[in-house]
């Protein structure tokens, strides 16, 4: 299985994401944002955390218009899997591949801490090993993780079971405690918490590794 991890200028979790993909059995290729195409035979694209383009303008706004993103959008529309974490989630929203937007945290401060999440759906390639309602521990680290969408969009996300994770204790003011959402075809996941930081028992937890292993298992049976 092949994964590509995109690096934008200012990405700083790109290596961490590549390590987590590799630990779940993926061959990982690193892709520079100025490239216009993705490697052939790819199974998943990862958009990492960090501060792409220094969070200038709006978080993820400039990265969403980088040359590589046209290829990522094409890949997603043709049924490819995409995982955007933290800044990667912001990029996916700015690129229109996921609905909604990530605003400044309600407390107006950066928040980095372990966070308890509730798995909101098991119906996705990223969450299928869990039962809906399972509580998992995956840390957050962001300044702009306050998920916002209009009422119709939120209702649609709920109706279509596209909320992947909710916060057990909301750290940032997100609407409906949303920590991660899925695309219509359920193959694009954006989430603010960092599963790649909870993928090693020595770092304090392995719940995050489930996301990567789940994807590997789902791809193996596609």
């Amino acid at each position, binding site marked *: 299985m092949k994964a590509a991890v995109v690096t934008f200028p200012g990405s700083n979790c790109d290596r961490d994401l590549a390590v987590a993909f590799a630990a779940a059995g993926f061959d990982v290729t690193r892709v520079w944002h100025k490239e216009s195409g993705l490697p052939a035979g790819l199974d998943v694209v990862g958009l990492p955390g960090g501060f792409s383009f*220094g969070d*200038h303008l709006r978080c993820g706004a400039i990265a969403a218009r980088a040359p590589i993103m046209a290829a990522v959008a094409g890949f997603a529309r043709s049924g490819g899997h995409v995982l955007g974490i933290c800044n990667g989630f912001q990029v996916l929203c700015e690129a229109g591949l996921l609905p909604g937007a990530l605003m400044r945290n309600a407390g107006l401060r950066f928040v980095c*801490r372990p966070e308890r999440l509730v798995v909101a759906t098991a119906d996705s390639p990223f969450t299928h090993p869990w039962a809906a309602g399972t509580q998992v521990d995956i840390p957050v680290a962001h300044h702009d993780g306050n998920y916002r969408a209009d009422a119709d969009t939120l209702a649609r996300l709920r109706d279509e079971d596209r909320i992947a994770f909710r916060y057990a204790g909301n750290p940032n003011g997100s609407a409906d405690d949303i920590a991660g959402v899925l695309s219509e075809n359920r193959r694009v996941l954006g989430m603010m918490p960092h599963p*790649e930081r909870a993928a090693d028992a020595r770092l304090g937890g392995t719940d995050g590794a489930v996301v990567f292993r789940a994807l590997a298992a789902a791809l193996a049976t596609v």
Partner: protein
Amino acid sequence: MSEPDTPARAHAAPPEPEITDALIAEHGLTPEEYARILRLLNRPPSFTELGIFSAMWNEHCSYKSSRKWLRTLHTTGPQVICGPGENAGVVDIGDGPDGAKLAVVFKMESHNHPSFIEPTQGAATGVGGILRDVFTMGARPIAAMNALSFGRPEHPRTPHLLRGVVEGIGGYGNCFGVPNVGGELRFHESYDGNCLVNAFAAGIARADAIFYSAASGVGMPVVYLGAKTGRDGVGGATMASAEFGEGTEEKRPTVQVGDPFTEKRLLEACLELMETGAVISIQDMGAAGLTCSAVEMGDKGGLGIRLDLDRVPCREAGMSAYEMMLSESQERMLMVLRPEREAEARAIFDKWDLDFAVVGETIPEDRFLILHQGRTMADLPLRALSGEAPEYDRPWVETPAPAPLPDLPDLPPLSALTTLITSPNHAHKGWVWEQYDTQVGADTLRTPGQGAGIVRVHGTDKALAFTADVTPRYVRANPRMGGRQAMAEAYRNLCAVGAQPLAATDNLNFGNPEKPEIMGQLVGAIEGIGEAARALDMPIVSGNVSLYNETDGHAILPTPTIGAVGLLAHLDDVIPAAPGAGMVALLIGAPGTHLGQSALVLEAWGIEGGDAPDVDLGQEARHGAFVRDNRALIGAATDLSDGGLALAAFEMAAAGGVGVTLETATMTELFGEDQARYLVACSFDQAEALMVAGHAAGVPVSHVGRFGGDTVSLGGDSAPLADLVALWRGALAARFA
């Protein structure tokens, strides 16, 4: 490039100002120092030249008051690859994943004056500067810490400074992508008018790929890299070498503005370029920017430097030579490059959208030649700028013995503990750390708040432990013991997590060295630090001195912050922080006796009396080795410092989520701050074995209580752990959030 013969002041348009006594004084130069310049040049300096001398000869860059004493420090050892004098210290940490030898590169540096004037940008650029010092040497930063000292919490300025500094540190480090793994936060009225921001960074490099600042080869291109030069920070290093008083607010424009996004790209571009082998030498532009970095490269390489300022990438039009030479714009580097590799180097900087400009070349003669618009703006003997910098043997006096500790009123042990854990100095600091990214890099094994921070060396089974320590009230009472104690506490914090202490960096923050009593504090503290460095085999490999930390004549507490690094040869060597229910509490070291200058007497009664605790360095070394050697018998450990046994036991209990019972009710045993001590938690069988081992090694090991249940009980006086933890965790946020 044409070379006009003399500094062309007369032809300059606009003309440079005349050199007057007032202008000399504004540049922080004394009449004697100016006379020295006249002797060196045999002519009056131009305005630009005066600025260059001022930048090179101020306290911040020249260490003129401290150099004599810094030379006495212990700085060598088999583990030391590079000691003081470069951008950061370099220490061997053994083999990496591919068999190549690895090194840790680290340093701590202050950004006190800028942070007091403009807390967010001052602190941010402090973080940026120390990160640059580390990656300039070819190391990828893997850990950061910050030691912060503020005035009284109730002082009107303190909340603004604290919030701003924390925001600045987080804003810069989080975006750059380095995990914050520890530090210190204290409040004391002596910092009311002069906060301290000491930033530490450490990185990992291959030991055979360390980059130094010494230029080599004549006619080599001098390349400017990174962000453009603006007028920010002009005169910053001179500002940082003066006391504060009325009018400090007007100095805001001398504070630089940080851009962590540019710094992150600069990091990646520099490391990528270093991989190609194109770099001969490199120096970051920190204090006194282009001046200091160019002189450093030339001086160390025994070469001269010619700079053509017309080629310097500028942010604003019409900048003068003086401004360009003294600008402290951030995120800039100077490099000497192999000429045949220029195109390759330029391509890497283009990739990262950073400026790359050849701005000069190395020349054979001892000359610092600055050209601008076809005119020679400075023509100075280069070596003299650093080599001939003044050095002072300032008069100093021994610090008198402190007043004895008065008789203390009675206080029930739990009331005493509650006073400590709800004081801003000893409350839980989560409100601060949660604003820092502590896990980026996905190698952080221990986040802040549990003794030393621990970061895995990526791709290996090794880890490094980091700690920052000093107890300023000890240093004021007894500078030599206080200096020893800062080192000893750092040593203990490393041993308590199972690490072998490797080396340290010192960040010496003091008042005005022209006052003999302040100079006496500096001399005493350096003596104590030096003794400890030798006895504990923890050489000082880098450091920074910040003097003139005074406002309206009031000096800060002497604050020689020690940043130290230890090695865990295997991840399994880490001693946990959290005890389990049913574990026995053992004290390593003698029962407490000493309440002089303790946290308890200060927080409970506002008393700063008595002598600092005695630091027996032989005992520190023995007890530290005992903990490390017996790590397999230890379930959890912490060192004893502020607040003694009681505070250590409470913090361990909180970490483990289990109650604790200490049998003694004696105040000295509970809250005494005697040194060379650890509290460890063990299973019953381990405890017996550890006591036997202690007996054999001549190290006192005694049973002091047990972990378990859900209360904290001190000599029979008890309260629910959950209630105390809530008080402890909420105290800082309640005041500042």
